[in-house]
């Protein structure tokens, strides 16, 4: 960074009659150089690891590529096959949408409910908050997925608990109708971080609004529907978008619980898991690139849709 100080000297010299062109370059450098020096690592990363690869991936999605031979141009064949002739893609889409539609609303409802209970001056707030947050922090690890695999196994802990009430549970993870639910429960178990965001949002609601409402005789329920919920919609919106995008990208739990297969009968074949299998199991890199771009498209469409509809239900007045 000594260069920055050196150029300052050069600028001074330029003013004293050096060739004008050199002075101009030096003064441009003095003005903008430092910024670009600090930005350099990120710029290299952006071009080398984001923009370049993104363009390459778009190209690869129109090729057949197995890592060994050079990519071979196949036009839109990959996309055509995805759209019309790939039952596994259809299965993956179905599983992923089911997971999103089940896990996000349950998780957010639970998070909001607990946040509201905690917000009303509960004693021991910090202890409860810590306990509820812990699963969010640990939940992404393989250890928790391993634990889940045991909890919901045929002879697992959940069935042992149920047996004490005389209920004989199925083998949850190896039954195609239930396996997705074990993943939904795992996601809902991690409601802690949206809960913390809800708590922060609830703190923003001025207390005098509630005081005025209760003077006017509004019931607690009414206060919730007329004050809390509308004022919290920006936070609900934010949480919903973040959690949904995250759910589209979920990978580890499904991989561990199904042993990497997405089974039984593709019932836990998350989109990312299918993409991984195509790319790193079957080495169909071109096809997997097309799958990646479809995922981008889905996430982009979803995000655009949420922002467009948000003006009808998200309350922004301040």
């Amino acid at each position, binding site marked *: 960074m000594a260069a920055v100080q050196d150029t300052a000297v050069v600028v001074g010299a330029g003013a004293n009659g050096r060739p004008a062109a050199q002075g101009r370059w030096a003064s441009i450098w003095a003005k903008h150089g430092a910024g670009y020096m*600090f*930005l350099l690592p990120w710029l290299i990363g*952006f071009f080398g690891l984001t923009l370049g690869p*993104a363009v390459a991936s778009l190209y690869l999605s129109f090729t057949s590529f197995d890592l060994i031979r050079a990519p071979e141009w196949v036009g839109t064949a990959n996309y055509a096959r995805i759209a019309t002739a790939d039952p596994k893609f259809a299965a993956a889409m179905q599983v992923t949408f089911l997971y999103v539609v089940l896990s996000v609303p349950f998780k957010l409802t639970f998070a909001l409910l607990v946040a509201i*209970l905690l917000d*009303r001056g509960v004693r021991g707030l910090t202890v409860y908050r810590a306990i509820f947050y*812990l699963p969010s922090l640990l939940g992404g690890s*393989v250890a928790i997925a391993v634990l889940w*695999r045991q909890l919901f196994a045929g002879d697992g802990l959940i069935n042992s608990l149920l047996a004490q009430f005389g209920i004989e549970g199925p083998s949850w993870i190896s039954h195609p109708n239930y396996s997705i639910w074990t993943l939904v429960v795992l996601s809902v178990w991690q409601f802690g971080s949206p809960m913390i965001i809800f708590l922060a949002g609830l703190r923003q609601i001025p207390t005098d609004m509630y005081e005025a409402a209760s003077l006017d005789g509004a019931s607690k329920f009414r206060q919730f529907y007329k004050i809390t919920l509308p004022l919290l919609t920006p936070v609900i919106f934010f949480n919903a978008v973040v959690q949904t995008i995250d759910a*589209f990208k979920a990978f580890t739990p499904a991989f561990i619980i199904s042993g990497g297969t997405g089974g039984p009968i593709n019932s836990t074949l998350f989109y990312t898991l299918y993409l991984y299998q195509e790319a790193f199991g079957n080495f169909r890199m071109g096809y997997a690139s097309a799958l990646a771009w479809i995922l981008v498209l889905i996430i982009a469409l979803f995000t655009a849709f949420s922002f467009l509809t948000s003006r009808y239900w998200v309350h922004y007045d301040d």
Partner: protein
Amino acid sequence: MTDATMSSVTAPSSAPLGRRGPLGSVLVHAGLIAASIAMLYPLLWMLSASVRPEDEIFASTSLWPSSIDFASYLRGWFGLDVSFGRFFWNSLVVSVLTVIGNVVACSLAAYAFARLRFAGRNFWFAIMLGTLMIPYHVTLIPQYVLFLNLGWVNTFLPLVVPKFLASDAFFIFLMVQFFRGIPRELDEAAMMDGCGAWRIYWKIMLPLSLPVLATAAIFSFIWTWDDFFGPLIYLNDMNTYTIQLGLRTFVDSSSTSDWGGLFAMSTLSLVPVFFFFLFFQRLLIEGIATTGMKR
């Protein structure tokens, strides 16, 4: 969006919906305690399964082992061809290097965005925010091809080098927000005294930004420690496995035989994250509340 959630969550609550009666209060606590037990039960059960005799693991739903025995830890530690010591060491190396890379590279970029004037700053800032939206799957395959051709597969380089190029743009955003809150008078005074951009960054911004640097460091560590996808793709040689890959191999090779050892190693793998939870909880919770981080 972040403004809406920008309050300190640790401020005392002011009972917005009015005070509850004693009965209501008891009911609320009963509900919260029941929920807490349900949340913690699986974790505590795993902890107790890791120290109880093997034949008792599936016979008991209680959390209290009949006798405490650390044999599963020893069995688990040496349960694979490569010991778990190696996996823990590998995870530690990758995580620490990631922390350094993220803190250094992201703070450099954040300083440029927050404080320096240069042509195209707003343009690059918008691009940086745009990269936050792109799912990593789009760059995954070309990056893999790149690192494969560089001969970096089965080394930690593909996991670590991108961090030194500020690939976790989220932390740039986090730091920009913080840097903007530092009074400008400080840098202006330093500039009067002849300090260059580098000295201001090093002597003023960084020392005043320890909270945000710590938040970034802790989240980097936890996310890297827990990362499964990256190591799964780039590390195939068992000697290079991180703890998450080690666990996965263990569960595949011994899913029906050594549950005690598996739970023991799973429990151990959670210890570093739990440590951060215990000692830096406030920083973590504030980080989430102010920025909406997902975990």
